[in-house]
């Protein structure tokens, strides 16, 4: 379409509202978070010291890196950080190991089945996240479904410690984010040119060999998209470590929540958010180029 004389005006008629909305409700809030992360907690409304303060001399800026220094000095935060990274890395890998064969099988299924199988993957992803995490409490707890079944079968004599530990957090993460992994993998595998595999077979490659040297390399963009898509929100996960984890399995998202809701330390919570964002900046910048390209 040629950009006619009226078209700039028309463009901004379309764009002005969503652009202004996103600037106000997505970009400006980050600036405020950063500003408040430099403040101090105080008793009052709001519970943080103002950025600009007035004393006998005039206006001056009150900002300090004290919250960040505190995050570095208390090992609780550092451990929560490491936990988040470790849990997320392991869960992303397991999601990939379960999700890849599933996506592959769906992509190779007969046409009529493909839609149905895909719908079955999407369905739990639309149901309440909270309820899916809650379901695991009933399964894993001390007198839960799994322990009761194992006891009844005589396989164990005392309940296994299945919940409020690293194991249950890991299961919760894999379970909740598996559909996010399968969908981009499927999208890539579905477009794959299967005649390449036939060519490899004709040239004498065994199925596994063909998979390793043809299918897997060609599906790497889907692997990358899926991994990034689950990694970023998982790092900040709150509900799963809160409901399924124990005191030793803190993740950074739960630390932020507790600082805010339990300790009412807004500036420290803001500093945790900034620190988390710094950790996620690299994966976000990779995926945002991908997303921007996908949208564009």
């Amino acid at each position, binding site marked *: *379409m040629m950009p006619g004389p009226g078209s*700039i005006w028309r*463009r901004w008629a*379309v*764009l002005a509202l*969503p652009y202004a909305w*996103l600037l106000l*409700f*997505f970009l*400006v*809030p980050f600036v*405020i*978070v950063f500003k408040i992360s430099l403040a101090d907690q105080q008793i009052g409304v*709001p519970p943080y010291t103002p950025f600009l303060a007035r004393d006998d001399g005039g206006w001056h800026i009150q900002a300090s890196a004290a919250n960040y220094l505190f995050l570095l000095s208390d090992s609780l935060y550092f451990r929560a950080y490491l936990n988040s990274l470790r849990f997320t890395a392991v869960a992303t890998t397991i999601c990939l190991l*379960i999700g890849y*064969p*599933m996506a*592959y*099988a*769906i992509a*190779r*299924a007969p046409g009529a089945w493909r839609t149905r*199988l895909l719908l079955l993957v*999407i*369905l739990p992803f*639309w149901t*309440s*996240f*909270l*309820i*899916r995490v*809650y*379901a695991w*409490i*009933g399964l894993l*707890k001390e007198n*839960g479904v799994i322990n*009761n079944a194992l006891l009844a079968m005589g396989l164990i004599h005392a309940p296994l410690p299945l919940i409020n530990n690293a194991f249950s957090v890991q299961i919760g993460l894999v*379970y909740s984010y598996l559909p996010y992994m399968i969908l981009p993998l499927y999208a890539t595998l579905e*477009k794959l040119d299967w005649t390449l595999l036939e060519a490899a077979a004709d040239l004498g490659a065994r199925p596994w060999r063909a998979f390793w040297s043809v299918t897997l390399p060609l599906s790497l963009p889907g692997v990358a998209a899926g991994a990034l*898509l689950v990694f970023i*929100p998982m790092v*900040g*996960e*709150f*509900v799963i470590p809160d*409901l399924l984890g124990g005191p030793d399995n803190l993740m950074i*998202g739960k630390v932020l*929540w507790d600082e805010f809701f339990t300790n009412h330390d807004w500036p420290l*919570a803001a500093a945790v*958010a900034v620190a*988390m*964002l710094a950790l*996620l900046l690299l994966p976000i910048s990779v995926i*945002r180029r991908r*997303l*921007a390209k*996908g*949208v*564009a």
Partner: protein
Amino acid sequence: MKRLSPLLLVMLVLGYAFLYGPIASVVVYSFNASRLVTVWAGFSVHWYGELLRNDQIQDAALTSLSIALMSATGSLVLGTLAGYGLARFARFRGRGLFAVLTASPLIMPEVITGLSLLLLFVALERATGWPNGRGMFTITLAHITLGLSYVAVVVAARLESFDISLEEAALDLGARPFKVFRVITLPLIAPALAAGWLLAFTLSVDDLVIASFTTGPAATTLPMVIFSSVRMGVSPQINALATLILLLVAVLVIGASRLIVPKKNGAAARTPG
């Protein structure tokens, strides 16, 4: 089409068992007569009756539904504009920033979005007196921001899947831009609009974290009630509630998929992927 190998078939069956097993256990135990959630004491619909008498849950459900209705509709309007802009305007000042802003809420951890929106509302109220207090209104604003992104992505993907020449032809024939949008574009993207609205609605109904940050003392949503009661321990009433929610979602999603997934004979009208 070749048949699936036995190994793949086994992986598929195990994968679906993993996805649906926990959900099935919630549904089964919602019909348990015993108060102890995990001891089976016979079939009963007792907990569904309790649920009907639980005013707190019903109020929260009503709050959640009204927030979801408003925010999904707001997301639809803003997200359609954003998706249309991204798909149809190849170049404009600030396009890069706009694309990033549109996509980012999709992947941002909820605790960060929630905290940053709350701090914005507090700062705005101190500076301008608006929004006066926090509750349903501020949750709705927050959910519109989240839903906008989902709608924009779905709408942009749909717009890119069909040929722009249809719109250009109408323009060449002298139709005004808004009429082209109404007569040509809108019917073509209608399935994406339905999917986007539904997605935004579901996200809003389901959200615990962002709503907890942005609410005030006046508004309690359904996920907040579920969360605080789950923190106390597993409760049979929550199982019953979960089953009802699952049923509702299944009906909605399967209904929507009929709308969105092409029928066999209508498939020719659509361009694949």
